[in-house]
């Protein structure tokens, strides 16, 4: 995923504008043809096309699932157990895309989302679904807090890329172990009734997992829609696409940046709560998922935000399919890490060229 292309690139001296500002017309006589070619030559990509292909693929998989037990299990368990991965990756990708920061401390936003939910649930006596959103909001506020207290200051002090990552790594570990002081060392569980099992495509799934899947899907759609459809979402995308041009169009960077950190934190916190209700909440909840989130974002982000969602879904299903096959989850992680690293080697973002030689 490209970092926002800076307008009038502030860090590059005045250079010959040859490359992009090419005057391409041939002799003047061909001018008329060019106009025709320009207005009708290229047929713009239809946004609906990709979606319909994916829908067709999904339908195909469901049909396949009804025929094969293995496919059915992979699909259903993969989707329900790893649903939160998509949410987490979406939030992380948003942050990465706008700020260019690979925020390792995002792991703790996820963890804290889980803890906030447990804490609210046990102290207020509310049910899980009543505390999910407040927990997400708290995680969002925490995310904004870390931006204001640390990353904003760091950016102003012109801390380098490598140092930024080291800082987020340090913050991650500080929060992770700080959590152990605050919340204790015990693994915590949500107090929920023993679930009923519902059969989907012939695979038994606990009811709350289905609800969690539905909620995660709904929240992912909501967050995606917020980014794609609303006024603030538009400003977020504009700022991510071209920071300078967005500012010159009147977009106030601080407001929008705070919003990004909040939405990213919200998504992470919600993911944490759903991870937590699926198994348990522990200080390592987020950091166990971090590598997978990082890989999904880096690989999916080669395309765009929707790419992150699809790579996330595919990863979840592949993880389950391989676990079913090998009988051990660790092997599937191993295969996935190798696969992702291979993709990164081939298509990953290149070293930024400090010098155009």
């Amino acid at each position, binding site marked *: 995923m490209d970092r926002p*292309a800076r*307008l*009038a*690139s*502030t*860090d*590059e*001296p*005045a250079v*010959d*504008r040859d490359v*992009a*500002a*090419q*005057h*391409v*017309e041939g002799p*003047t006589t061909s*001018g*008329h043809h*060019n*106009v025709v*070619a*320009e*207005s009708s*030559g*290229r047929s*713009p*990509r239809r*946004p609906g096309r990709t979606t319909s292909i994916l829908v067709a693929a999904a339908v195909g998989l469901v049909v396949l699932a009804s025929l094969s037990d293995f496919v059915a299990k992979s699909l259903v368990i993969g989707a329900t157990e790893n649903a939160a991965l998509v949410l987490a990756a979406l939030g992380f990708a948003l942050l990465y895309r706008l700020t260019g920061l690979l925020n390792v401390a995002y792991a703790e936003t996820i963890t804290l989302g889980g803890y906030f939910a447990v804490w609210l649930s046990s102290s207020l006596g509310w049910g899980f679904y009543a505390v999910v959103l407040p927990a997400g909001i708290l995680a969002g506020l925490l995310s904004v807090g870390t931006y204001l207290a640390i990353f904003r200051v760091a950016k102003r002090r012109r801390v380098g890329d490598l140092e930024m990552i080291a800082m987020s790594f340090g913050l991650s570990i500080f929060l992770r172990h700080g959590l152990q002081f605050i919340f204790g060392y015990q693994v915590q569980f949500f107090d929920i009734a023993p679930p009923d099992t519902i059969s989907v495509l012939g695979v038994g799934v606990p009811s709350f997992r289905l609800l969690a899947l539905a909620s995660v899907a709904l929240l992912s759609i909501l967050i995606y829609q917020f980014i794609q459809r609303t*006024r603030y979402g*538009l*400003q977020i*995308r*504009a700022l991510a*696409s*071209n920071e*300078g*041009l*967005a*500012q*010159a*169009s*009147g*977009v*106030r*960077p601080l407001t929008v940046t705070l919003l990004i950190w909040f939405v990213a934190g919200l998504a992470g916190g919600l993911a944490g709560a759903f991870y937590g209700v699926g198994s348990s909440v522990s200080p390592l909840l987020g950091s166990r998922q971090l590598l997978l989130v990082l890989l999904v974002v880096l690989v999916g982000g080669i395309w*765009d935000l929707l790419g992150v969602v699809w790579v996330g879904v595919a990863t979840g299903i592949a993880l389950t399919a391989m676990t079913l096959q090998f009988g051990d989850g660790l092997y599937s992680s191993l295969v996935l890490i190798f696969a992702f690293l291979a993709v990164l080697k081939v298509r990953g973002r290149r070293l930024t060229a400090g010098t155009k030689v």
Partner: protein
Amino acid sequence: MAEPSAPPILEVDGLHSGYGDVPVLKGLDFAVDSEVFAILGANGAGKTTLLATLARLLPVTDGSIRLGGKDVTAHPASETARLGIGYVPQEAAIFPDLTVFENLSIGGMIGERPLEQGLEEVFETFPDLRDKVGLRAGDLSGGESRMVACGRALMQDPSVLLLDEPTAGLSPLYVELFFQKIAEIHSGRGVTIVLTEQNATLALGVADRVMVLSLGLGSEVMTAADVTTDRLKEAYKL
């Protein structure tokens, strides 16, 4: 022309600017009133740097910029945009991942004017855009994306429009169309236009006054009617 007592719409005083510690502009003075003001100059003269500095995207190392008498030297770009500067850079002038409608909406987010009214005015100027609103801006042709870029700036309801090489890379028919539109925007809406142009002949067709930049220094401001080939050749060092 404004009343003698009124301050010029845009006033630049001893402007120094550049990238990092590389100076590009080395002391520019000029004032722009309600007019079409063209900045000429060869490749590398600092035209793009000047407009980006006026849009407040590059730091001013010395000197000042005043907009309608108000000092905006220390303002960030998002605030000068709200004060009435519309900026169309030469490169990366659109958000390629956003649709045409979204590109225009970004410009329409400031000010009191309802979005529909702004859109209507943009479509009046660029009718071609009307049936392209749903397309991804990055998929448009060069001329169309230039229209989107201009339209986005017009949506801000600017008092000054900064156009960086508005016709570079366009086919001759588009070039003619664009200069016509520029004249229209100025006369029809009273928007002051500051544009840079490498091709002196084209600029002289539309501009009221011109200034030639060479290696970060400006020549005296010439009224378009007074410009001769020899004066131009001298300013261009040809």
